[in-house]
């Protein structure tokens, strides 16, 4: 053992090198390489075989002609299909819209919550925050399922509305865009509240006292001092919600209608229903391209926060 250590030390691989190398190699293999493979497969053809895609690189040997050729076939038709067929473009745009609306709702509900908890008695903040996180520890799948019972015709809300006389028959909110908004906001709310709370809690309360002392009314002080200072939290929380929401599958699948087009569902259907792996890969690459800029912004914000020592 010590011999191995000695050798590795000499090569400069021991110590820190090993600590970094283990997760590094793991991620290279299981995170980075897969993306390259997806990129590659997006240029393949869908065939009836196991696995159901054609190979990109072929070695062609012609014995008679005495030739040995390396054939690389790139099938770009998958991407043309994405660009040409309205379905995909609509799905992308719809996904962006739904993700944006979800982010907005999460912000509207989550900001006051985070603010209220940050302003609360220090002893109470822990438990209050815990109450926000607790639903997160229970299965999100089951919680979406709960909304099915609430939103369907003859569901809880429908019965409530009928009972109070506001409507005359059962109301079906389920299987519509609104159900998706509610479900997604429900799931992503903790992701918005956490970074917002973290930023608001660190804010110096004496700033608001100074503003009041200088004659600013509370709401005005909030707009001109608290809101701008909480911007990093708003950005972090919004990105944490928006980016994964664009590619969301489960919620729209369970709560949305057949015309609730989201790119996550499209990818799933291409893969599982149509068994068209190349097209699914192309969809994934296109989705990645759409998200690359927000992802980079997110990493930039994360990096800055980490360096500021949190």
């Amino acid at each position, binding site marked *: 053992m010590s011999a191995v250590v000695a050798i590795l030390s000499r090569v400069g691989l021991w110590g*820190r090198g090993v*600590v*970094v190398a283990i*997760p*590094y190699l*793991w*991620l290279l293999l*299981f*995170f980075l390489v*897969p993306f390259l*493979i*997806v990129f590659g*497969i997006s240029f393949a053809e869908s065939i009836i075989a196991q*696995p159901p895609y054609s190979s990109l690189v072929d070695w062609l040997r012609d014995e008679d002609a005495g030739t040995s050729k390396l054939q690389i076939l790139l099938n770009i038709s998958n991407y043309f299909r994405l660009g040409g067929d309205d379905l995909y473009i609509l799905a992308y745009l719809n996904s962006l819209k739904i993700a944006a609306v979800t982010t907005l709702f999460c912000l509207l*509900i989550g900001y*006051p*919550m985070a*603010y*209220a908890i940050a302003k609360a008695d220090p002893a109470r903040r822990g*438990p*209050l925050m815990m*109450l*926000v996180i607790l639903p997160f*520890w*229970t*299965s999100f*799948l*089951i919680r979406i*399922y*709960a909304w*099915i*019972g*609430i939103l*369907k015709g*003859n569901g*809880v809300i429908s*019965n409530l509305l009928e009972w109070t006389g506001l409507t005359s028959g059962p109301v079906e909110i389920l299987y519509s865009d609104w159900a998706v908004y509610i479900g997604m906001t*429900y799931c992503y*709310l903790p992701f918005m509240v956490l970074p917002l709370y973290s930023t608001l809690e660190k804010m110096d309360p004496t700033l608001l006292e100074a503003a009041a002392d200088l004659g600013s009314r509370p*709401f005005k002080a909030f707009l001109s001092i608290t809101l701008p200072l909480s911007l990093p939290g708003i950005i972090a929380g919004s990105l*944490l919600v928006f*980016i*994964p929401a664009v*590619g969301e*599958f*489960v919620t729209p*699948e*369970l709560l949305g209608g057949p015309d609730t087009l989201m790119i*996550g569902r499209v*990818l799933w259907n291409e893969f599982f229903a149509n068994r068209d792996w190349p097209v699914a890969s192309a969809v*994934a690459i296109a*989705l990645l391209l759409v*998200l690359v800029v927000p*992802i980079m912004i*997110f*990493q930039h914000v*994360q*990096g800055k926060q*980490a360096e500021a*020592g949190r």
Partner: protein
Amino acid sequence: MRKIGFLSWALWFGYAFLYVPIALLVVFSFNESRLVTVWSGFSTKWYGELINNDALLSAAGLSFQVAAVSATLSVMLGTCAGLALSRFGRFRGRTLFGGMITAPLVMPEVITGLSLLLLFVALEQWVGWPDGRGVTTITIAHTTFTMSYVAVVIQSRLAGMDGSLEEAAMDLGARPAKVFFVITLPLIAPALVAGWLLAFTLSLDDVVVASFVSGPGSTTLPMVIFSSVKFGISPQINALATLMVLVVASGIFVASLVMARQERQRKRDEQMAIQNG
């Protein structure tokens, strides 16, 4: 004072929004009839059916196994990553490394699932491993994306920790590895536990990635729930939900009791210190 009123309302609305669905789930798990919207009497028969649902139980067993293994692996890898990012300064390839750590936090699950499946298929073609998809592939997949969460938790704990403790240990003659195991690790232990629990929960809850990378005979609990939920309401699911909520709630309750006791002890120690001044 009106402002406070608004905030309180907003807070309570938020909590209601979060908890009413869960409460309804629990209530209707005891409902006599199949309907989850009309109460027709108290019954625990759905719990009975749940216990006898073999498919569900074996899926649950599989899920727990995968979650435990992947959480453990994830904590080991994530701690290395968090340590590297917060203590090693600038090293070659740090930007790429940091990027690979933070990207899974926001990556849509369909992309993660698809890419990992394609990797496993390609690997099987080239190297012969992994031999078909199953528990191994699901575990690897879960480890990969939960590792990022653990890394973030560890990194933020390390950033908040006093770096001079590790310097003092080195100054007194301890080599870096010794410093990590004797000084750093005990002090970040709570973060390690939190990270493990986080990874465990994320793994237990995942349906999309598991659907992509699982194989015949390796159905996870979320996959079972998903397919049964797609077909509509099933009160067994309510029963399952209630059990889960119970476990989580009692876990948190116990944890907060322990933390409260530690807090009281700490206050007593501080008093003692001041008196001795």
